[in-house]
Each structure stands twice: as C-alpha cells, then as structure tokens.
C-alpha cells in the first residue's frame, strides 16, 4: 500500500511542473510582444545615420515618358551617328 501511494504521488508531482511550464509560457508571450513594441519604438525614434537618398526620376511622370517613347525610337533609327554601334 505504501509503495502504491508513493507511485501516485510521483505521478501527481509530474503533472504539476507541466502546469507550471504552461503558466511560464503565459509570461513569455506578453514579454516578447512588449519587447518587440519597445524595440520597434526605439528604431523609429533613432535618426538615420546615412543621408536620405531621393530618387530624382520620381519627378518624371510616366505618361510623359510614354508620350516621348515613339519619338525616341524614331530618333534611334534616324541618328546612328549618335545612337548606333
């Protein structure tokens, strides 16, 4: 009888740490989310250490380029001295 009781207790003791682990995971998720929020907050606050590069071509409107494309192709055909091999 004594032997059986000990075995039961051992089993019960095995279940308890598992429950403990589950409660530990509950802590882990908010900590990770909180850490990510804190980290992203830091990144957005920091000033960039490299100069900001502006793409100048953005100023060129796509419709302008499309309108000019036909004339550009004609130019390449007509001026091999400027655009030929």
């Amino acid at each position, binding site marked *: 009888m004594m032997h059986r009781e000990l075995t039961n207790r051992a089993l019960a003791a095995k279940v308890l740490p598992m429950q403990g682990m589950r409660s530990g995971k509950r802590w882990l998720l908010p900590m990770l989310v909180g850490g990510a929020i804190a980290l992203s907050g830091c990144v957005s606050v920091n000033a960039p250490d490299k*100069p900001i*590069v502006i793409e100048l*071509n953005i100023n*060129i409107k*796509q419709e*302008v*380029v*499309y*309108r*000019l*494309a036909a*004339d*550009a*192709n004609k*130019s*390449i055909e007509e*001026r*091999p*001295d*400027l*655009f*030929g*091999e």
Partner: protein
Amino acid sequence: MTALIERKHNRLSLVLAAAALGMLLPAAQASAQVASPVLASARASGQVGEQTDGYLGFPSVPSAEVRRAADELNIKRRAFYAERAAAQHSTVEDYAFTMGCQLIAKTKPGEKYQAPDGSWRTRGAEAPLRNNLCPAT
C-alpha cells in the same frame, strides 16, 4: 550611392564644361556619319555603357581616348535631346531619360548598361533591368 551621385555630378559638370567649350569651337561639332570606331570597340568590350539618363557612362576607368570620344558623343546627344525635347514640348531631362530607357532596351548581349539602382550590369539574353517608368519597347 552617394559616391555614385557625386561621380555623376562630376561627370555632368565635365560634360557641361565641355559643352561650353564646344560652343566656342563649332568646328569640333562637325557631325560624323557613323559612330566612332573607338566607341564601337569600347562598347563591345564594356568600357562604356548606356546610362539610365540617356548618356554614355564608364563602368570602369576608361582610357583617355575612350573618355574623350564618349564625352564628345554625349555633348552631341545633349544638343540633339534639347532639339527633340523642344519639338515635343518636353524637357531635355525627360527626353533624355526616355532615350535612356530605349537605348538600354536595345543593348546587345555582352554590352554594359546601368540598372535603375545605378549599378552596372552586363546585358544577357534576358530583358535588361529598367526603371518602372520606362515604356514597353
């Protein structure tokens, strides 16, 4: 990227200075009927390539002869772009950029061209990397 922009600016100022010189010496602008053989071989060997802005550039340090020939051609190109831009009621930069799109599209495998990010690429069998603003060929 900044170094590249600085280099581009340096080259632009060089071209502008050369353009000013060219206006003083109209004889130097006598147009040839064919592209110079110096540039033809430089293009084939990758010493010059088409830039995104419609002018020839140097993927590697060129010889003095190649540099001179390319600068000379770029001056002629700029004058031509100005003429066509006026006829199309556009700006030299817009017309030159459109030309850059089409000239890069017409490069042949093995030749160098400038990608939208400013890096130099060697044209393969596939379509070249071009700016999103470029029209279909």
